[in-house]
């Protein structure tokens, strides 16, 4: 399938103004609007400074993750003529705010930025992602675990380099289990057991289990494993496959947790991804979250005793998890896309000792992830990072059951999100919700012309 841009004949803003806003041309402001708007830098360029927007550093608290980003930029700037300038955007604004979007809308997007799988196609179809392939040596490409680059490629060209792999699991509080008179033998393996155990764990101040309740890409991300466990999919072979028993039972499972009052309708802190605020504060006894929470707990709730288990499965289902992970991407319409691509390849893809160590630091020291590259995993193994405890479980038991987070455009993401929300929080009929969502996705797919959805 060939990747045609969303609009076969992109019109510049100049012609918009000429065509649609003739009246405006008469006004005093139109002059500068016309001249400056038409001149979107179209790649190439010779900018001497590249902006790198991210939600890690330099942050106000200057924690280790912030420091990793600052060091990265300093290191690059010491040896390169085209400098990288970090710009920190608080996570909330980056993920849900207008900052990045308004910037791109006005042709003022950053040169380098972070992107989640859920946003990949939107930016790719918008024509702003730079092909990183030529900057990436073959040995780097070969170093990535299978499937990771493919999830960020179109037509064999790589458009984003993942910085981490983040599988999901179910965290549980040992204290909560003890208090409820439960032991490790009671850890749920099936959905039914989850509901039963959660009921015993629910108390005046605590919910037995917790799934994300806030709508957004993150909620969809955390829900897909339950869909996959029953062998379901949103899209299969380019066609909608959402109206399936697997989707219905997964929607119903989340609905049951709320209906039985064993899961909260609204999480604390930053929501489902925030284990410290929920499991750590005692507000939830079990919580679905990602591997990053290991580092969060280490930093903020060191003495809290917890463990992880794979997602419980439906009867007859298979284990599954979702592998998230943000990637570095370069803006094809930025000041210097080539240099930006080089920076990304160097920052995340370098296979020399220094590059591997930098990756090891990010994935196992300042943050906890499954490293996306074989050489980095090896280096981490050599340090004994994955020898024991929850990290071992993540790497050996959970990650292998995962598949990369799907890259759905907003038009596919939204109907799924609405179905999840309606069933989980508004007691909608799962069968009807799945059918409605499928119909909407179907309509969209009929006219969709962008890069393949997977």
């Amino acid at each position, binding site marked *: 399938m060939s990747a045609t841009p969303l609009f076969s004949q992109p019109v510049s803003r100049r012609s918009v103004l000429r065509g649609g806003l003739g009246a405006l041309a008469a006004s005093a402001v139109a002059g500068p609007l016309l001249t400056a708007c038409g001149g979107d830098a179209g790649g190439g360029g010779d900018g001497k400074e590249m902006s790198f927007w991210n939600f890690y550093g330099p942050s106000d608290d200057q924690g280790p993750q912030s420091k990793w980003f600052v060091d990265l930029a300093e290191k690059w700037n010491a040896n390169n003529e085209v400098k990288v300038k970090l710009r920190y955007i608080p996570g909330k604004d980056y993920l849900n705010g207008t900052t990045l979007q308004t910037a791109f809308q006005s042709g003022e997007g950053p040169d380098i930025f972070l992107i989640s799988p859920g946003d990949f196609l939107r930016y790719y179809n918008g024509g702003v992602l730079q092909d990183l392939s030529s900057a990436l040596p073959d040995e780097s490409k070969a170093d990535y675990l299978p499937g990771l680059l493919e999830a960020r490629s179109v037509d064999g060209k790589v458009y984003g380099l993942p910085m981490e792999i983040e599988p999901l699991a179910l965290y549980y509080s040992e204290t909560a289990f003890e208090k409820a008179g439960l032991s490790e033998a009671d850890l749920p393996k099936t959905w039914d057991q989850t509901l039963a155990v959660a009921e015993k764990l629910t108390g005046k101040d605590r919910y037995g289990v917790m799934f994300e309740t806030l709508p957004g890409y993150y909620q969809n991300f955390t829900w897909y494993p339950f869909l996959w466990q029953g062998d379901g999919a949103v899209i299969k072979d380019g066609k909608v496959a959402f109206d399936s028993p697997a989707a219905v039972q997964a929607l119903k499972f989340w609905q049951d947790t709320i209906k039985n009052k064993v899961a909260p309708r609204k999480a604390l802190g930053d929501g489902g991804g925030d284990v410290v*605020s929920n499991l750590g504060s005692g507000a939830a006894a079990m919580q679905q979250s990602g591997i990053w929470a290991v580092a969060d707990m280490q930093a903020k709730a060191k003495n809290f005793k917890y463990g992880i288990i794979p997602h419980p499965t439906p009867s007859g289902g298979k284990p599954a998890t979702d592998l998230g992970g943000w990637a570095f991407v370069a803006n094809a319409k930025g000041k210097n896309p080539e240099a930006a691509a080089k920076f990304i390849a160097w920052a995340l893809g370098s296979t020399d000792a220094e590059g591997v160590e930098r990756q090891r630091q990010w994935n196992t020291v300042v943050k906890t992830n499954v490293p996306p590259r074989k050489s980095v995993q090896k280096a981490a193994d050599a340090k004994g990072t994955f020898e024991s405890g929850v990290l071992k479980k993540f790497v050996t038991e959970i990650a292998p059951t995962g598949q990369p987070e799907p890259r759905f455009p907003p038009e596919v993401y939204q109907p799924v999100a609405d179905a999840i929300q309606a069933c989980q929080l508004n007691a909608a009929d799962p069968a009807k919700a799945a059918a409605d969502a499928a119909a909407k996705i179907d309509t969209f797919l009929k006219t969709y012309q962008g890069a393949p959805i997977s």
Partner: protein
Amino acid sequence: MRTKFFFPLLAHVLASIAVAPLLWILISALKPAEDVFSFGWPSAWTLENLRYVLFKIPLPMFLMNSAIVSVVVTVVALFFHSMAAYALARLRFPGRGIIFSGIMSTLLVSLPVILVPLFLVAKQLNLLDSYAGLIVPSIFHAFGIFLLRQYYLNIPRELEEAADLDGCGYWRRYWSVILPLSRPVLASLSVLFFLANWNAFLWPLTITRNPDLRVIQLGISGMQGQYASAWNLILAAAVIAAIPTVVVFVAGQKRLVDAMKTTGLK
């Protein structure tokens, strides 16, 4: 007369209910982190939360940025608005009705609605990521013009005419007669304007990228992401963010009521 005691008492009770959430936040901000959800009088008081947000987080910088923006917008806006209002209320000229309706109709357009096109305009005027960008677009708002016009309509004409006999031009009339007369209304409007600008969120969020330009509301909302689990710190920052507006309000409280009265909204 029972009502004589009943209504004041009722007013006191309702007022206490209205401020209770705010007081609860104040108390919670003074609790140690682990007590933040405990319901009741804190076992111990601490200033640690306030100290942390003031010294470990660039909260003072956020406050400074907000202060600069709010003060400049307030002063410039009131100046422009009073000029425009003077013309609309006291001068005769062709097109007055149309211009006034035109100005009033902009009241229907709110920021969320024109966010993106406004951003494009700001970009063309080189206002992005600067104090000017935070300040200039916030100056123009029909509300102040309207209120001042209402006020000026009620100033007796004789005052101005006396000045005219002395051979004053329009500028002198405005500057030496109207402006001094409008001191009370300007003082109270400045309270309203300061509050509105101090509390601005959406526009600063859209127009600034430089972290050094973050205003207080942005700073706090950013904290919510970064310190999601630390309600004690978020509440402490919220308390500090509210202090300047509360101070301005308490200082201007009496004037505010007078202003509402004198603008002739009847």
